[in-house]
C-alpha cells in the first residue's frame, strides 16, 4: 500500500552560527548576518517521509512558505528524493504569526491528495512548535507530535512513538494524520548525486523570468514574458519547474493572512547579553567535585 506524504519545511537563519551581528539593536534577528539553512528538524520530517516512500511506495511533496530565496531548500529536498516541490510565496504573507501561517499552509495542503502530513517539531528561529498542531486542527485530522522513531503503518492505521518529556508514549490512529518529528527520529540522508545533477537547474516560473530578464537586458517586457512561458513549458516537461503558488491561487481569505490574520502581539523584546562575572577553579579531586555538585544543588541549578 502506497502513501502520499506532504512535508512542510522552512528556511531559517542558522542560529548555531550566531556571531556578534546576529541581533539587530531592537532585539530582532538580523537575518542578513546568518546563513539561511534548511530547518534541521524539517530534514528529519523529510527523511521520515522518504523512509515511508522507500518502504511502502507513494510520493513525497514538499511545501514551503517563504521568500523566493526559499527555493534553495526546495531544491535541497528534491536532491534528497522528494518528488515534487511547491513554493508558497506572496508579499501579503509577510508578518504572519503561527495562526496565519498555519491557515495559509492549510489552504495549500488542501489542494493536494495526502495521507500523511509531516512537519519538523519546531523551527530554530521561532521555536514555537505551534504551526504543525494548528495545521492539523485546520485540516481536521488527528496529530501525533514529537515523533521520535520511524513509524509503523498497516493499511490505514499508523503507530508512532512520541517523546513526552519524561518518557515515551505509543499512539495509534487512523490516516490521514499529521506528524511532527524530532531530531532523534532518524538521520537525514544526504543529497543524491544523480538527483543533484538533474535538479540543480530547477526553478520557479518567477525565477525563470528573472533569469531571462538578466540574460536579455534589451528585450521588451512582452518578449521576456513570451520567452519565459516557452522556457517554463520546456522545463516543466523535464520536471524541472518548481510550482509557485500565491494567495489568489490558494483562494485564501486575506483577513486570515499576514498581519491582519496574526493576533500575536509582541509585548516586549528584551536583549539579554550574558557576560561572565567571575570564575572559580575546582580541583579535579573527589572532594572538589562533591563540593561543586553541592553548590549547584544549593543554587538549584541542578535538581
Amino acid at each position: 500500500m502506497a502513501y502520499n506524504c506532504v512535508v512542510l519545511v522552512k528556511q531559517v537563519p542558522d542560529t548555531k552560527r550566531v556571531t556578534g551581528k546576529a541581533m539587530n539593536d531592537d532585539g530582532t534577528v538580523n537575518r542578513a548576518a546568518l546563513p539561511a539553512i534548511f530547518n534541521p528538524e524539517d530534514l528529519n520530517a523529510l527523511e521520515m517521509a522518504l523512509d515511508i516512500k522507500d518502504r511502502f511506495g507513494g510520493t513525497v511533496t514538499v511545501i514551503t512558505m517563504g521568500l523566493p530565496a526559499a527555493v534553495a531548500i526546495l531544491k535541497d529536498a528534491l536532491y534528497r528524493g522528494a518528488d515534487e516541490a511547491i513554493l508558497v510565496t506572496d508579499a501579503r504573507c509577510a508578518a504572519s504569526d503561527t495562526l496565519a501561517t498555519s491557515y495559509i499552509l492549510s489552504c495549500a495542503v488542501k489542494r493536494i491528495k495526502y495521507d500523511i502530513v509531516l512537519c519538523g517539531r519546531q523551527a530554530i528561529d521561532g521555536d514555537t512548535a505551534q504551526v504543525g498542531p494548528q495545521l492539523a486542527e485546520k485540516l481536521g485530522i488527528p496529530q501525533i507530535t514529537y515523533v521520535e522513531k520511524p513509524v509503523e503503518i498497516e493499511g490505514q492505521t499508523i503507530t508512532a512513538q512520541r517523546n513526552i518529556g519524561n518518557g515515551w508514549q505509543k499512539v495509534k490512529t487512523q490516516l490521514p494524520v499529521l506528524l511532527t518529528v524530532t531530531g532523534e527520529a532518524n538521520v537525514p540522508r544526504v543529497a543524491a548525486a544523480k538527483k543533484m545533477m538533474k535538479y540543480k537547474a530547477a526553478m520557479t516560473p518567477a525565477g525563470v523570468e528573472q533569469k531571462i530578464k538578466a540574460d536579455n537586458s534589451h528585450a521588451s517586457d512582452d518578449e521576456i514574458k513570451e520567452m519565459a512561458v516557452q522556457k517554463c513549458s520546456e522545463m516543466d516537461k523535464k520536471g524541472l519547474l518548481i510550482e509557485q503558488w500565491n494567495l489568489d491561487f490558494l483562494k485564501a481569505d486575506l483577513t486570515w493572512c499576514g498581519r491582519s490574520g496574526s493576533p500575536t502581539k509582541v509585548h516586549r523584546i528584551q536583549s539579554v547579553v550574558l557576560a561572565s562575572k567571575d570564575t572559580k577553579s575546582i580541583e579535579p579531586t573527589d572532594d572538589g567535585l562533591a563540593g561543586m555538585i553541592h553548590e549547584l544543588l544549593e543554587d538549584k541549578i541542578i535538581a
Partner: protein
Amino acid sequence: MPNFYADNDDIRFLFKHMDLGALARLCEEDFKFAPQFDSAPAGADEAIRNYEMVLDSIGQLSGDLIAPRAESVDREGSTLNADGSVSYAKGIAESLDNLAKAEVMGFTLPHRFGGLNFPNLVYSMATEIVSRADASLMNIFGLQGIAGTIEAFASEEIKQKYLHDFAAGKITGAMVLTEPDAGSDLQAVKLRAFQDNKDNWLLHGVKRFITNGCGEVLLVLSRSEPDRSGGLGLSLFVCERGPTVHIRRLEDKLGIHGSPTCEIFFDNTPCQLIGERQRGLVTYVMALMNGARIGIAGQSLGIAEAAYRIARDYASSRKQFGMAIQKLPAVRDLLIDMKIAIEAGRAMLYETSRVVDINICFERQLELNPPADKDKLKSLKEQTRRFDRLASMLTPMSKYLCSEMANRVSYDSIQVLGGSGYMRDYAVERHTRDARITTIYEGTSQLQIVAAVRGVCSGTAEKYLAELAQKEYDPELKDLLDKLAEGTKQLFSAVAFVKQQGADYMDLYGRPLVDIAMDLIVGYLFCDYASTKIEMDVAVEDSDEAKEQTMPMKKRKALVARRFITRNSPKNAALIQLICSGDKSSFTDFAALIGPVPVE
C-alpha cells in the same frame, strides 16, 4: 564535523587546477548523452559543477556520518554467523546505506546503467575523502572496479543483469583471486572451472584473503584449461552468492576491521564466463588490478590525511618545555615532511588518474567509434599506446608511493603524539594499523617497483619527464627546474649503467631507480602547481600566535616545490652513486650476510 571535501584546500585547489573540463569532454563523448539522460551534463562547465556538488555531498557524508562511526567499526569488526552469512559492523552497514542513497556506488559506470559516468580522477578524490573518514569502508566503496570490469569485458546480458544494481548500491562485489598457494603469483591459481554435460560452467575449490567475499556478486579467477599451467590456463567468471558458496572463516586482521576478509569454498558453484577463455589473468584481472591499485593509493592518501590532521592539531596544543611542541625543530620537520609527503602522493595519484582516464577514453573511442580518416586513426592509435604505457608506469608508482607514504605518515603521527599516540584514546593507532595493509594487498610495494622500473628503464619515464620539462613554468622556478633537469640526466645515465648489468641488477636497484623517477615527476608537478593560473587563497594559520593569515596557493606551492626539490636533489645524487656502484653483494654474499635459518 567538517565537510571532508570543503575543508581540504589541496583537493579543492587540484580540482580547479587540473583540466577537468577536458576530461569531462572525453568521458561524456562531447556531451552527447545530455538529451538522453537527466543527469548527463550538456557542457564542460556543467560537468565540473556536477563533480563538485557530488564531492561536496560525499565530503559532508564522510565528515558528518562516516567518520564518527569509524572507531566503533574498528572495535566491532565483521561477524561470521552460524548460518554461514556475514554481518558487517553496524557502522559499515549504515554507511553503505548512506552511500547507496547518495547515489555514488556507480561512480564511473556509464549513464545507461544508472552510473554517474565520472572520470577516475574524481573517483580518486572521492576515495580519498571516504577513506579519511573510515579506511575500511573504502574496501567496499572502492571496489567499484568490479562493476567496471564487468562493464569493460562481459557480455551485454551480464552487464544488464548486474550493473544497474551495482550503480544503485543494491549489491556489492568481490575480486576473488588469491588462493593459499597463489598470492603475488596469481599464475599459480588452482581453483577449477569446468563444464557439465549441458555446457554450464561450475566452480570448485578454495579462495583465501577475499575482501568482501560475502558480497552478492563475485568475480572469480579460475583454471578453465586443466592442461595448461600458468596464466594462459586461467579465465574469469562471475557467480552469485548462494548455497554453493561457503564462507569458511573470516580473518582476524591487524587493521581495516570493517572490511570482512573471507575464506571461500566453492562447491560446484554455477557461474558465467566473462569475455573470452584464457584471457582471465592476462587481460581482465590486470585491468581490474590496475583500477584497484589506484583505489588503494586513494585509501592510503585518506589514511595519511586523517593521521596528519591529528598530529597537526596535537602539536599546536601540546605544551612541553614551556611551549607548543610544534616549535621544537624536530617536531617542525616531522610535520612539514608529513604534509609535503601527502601533497606529493596526491600529486602523483591525481596525475595518474588523469592519464588513466585519457587512456580509457581513447581505447573506448578506438573500439566503438574509430575515426574514418586514416591519419587521424593512426594518430589516435599512437596516442592510445602512449597513454597506455604511461598509465602502466604511473599506476604502480602511485600505489607504491602513496601506500609507503601512508605508513610513514601514520608512524610519524604517533611519534608526534608520543605516549598518547600509542594509546587507543587517539585514532592515530587505528590509522597506523589500517595503513599497514596498503603496501601489501593489490600487489606489494616490491611488485609495484618491478612493474614501475620497467617503465623507468624502457624510455617511458624519459619521454614523460621530457614532456614535463617542456611545459611552461613560472620564471621564478628556473633554479628548481635546472635541478630537476640535472637529476633527470643523472637518472638516465644510471639507467644506462643498470641496463649493462642485466635484469637481475635492475630489480636489485629497482627501488632507488623508481624513487628517483617519482621524485622528479612530483618535482615537475609541484612546479606546475606553483605556476598555476588559479587564484585561490589558503589559510596559513599559526595557532601559537592565534592569528589567521592567508596566502595565495600559487605562492604556497612554490614554497612546497622549493623545499621538496632542494632537499631531495642531494639525496637522489647519493642514490645515483649507490646504483652505479656495481655492488652485487645481495647476490654474491647472501648466505654469509643473512646467516642460517633459525632453528626452533
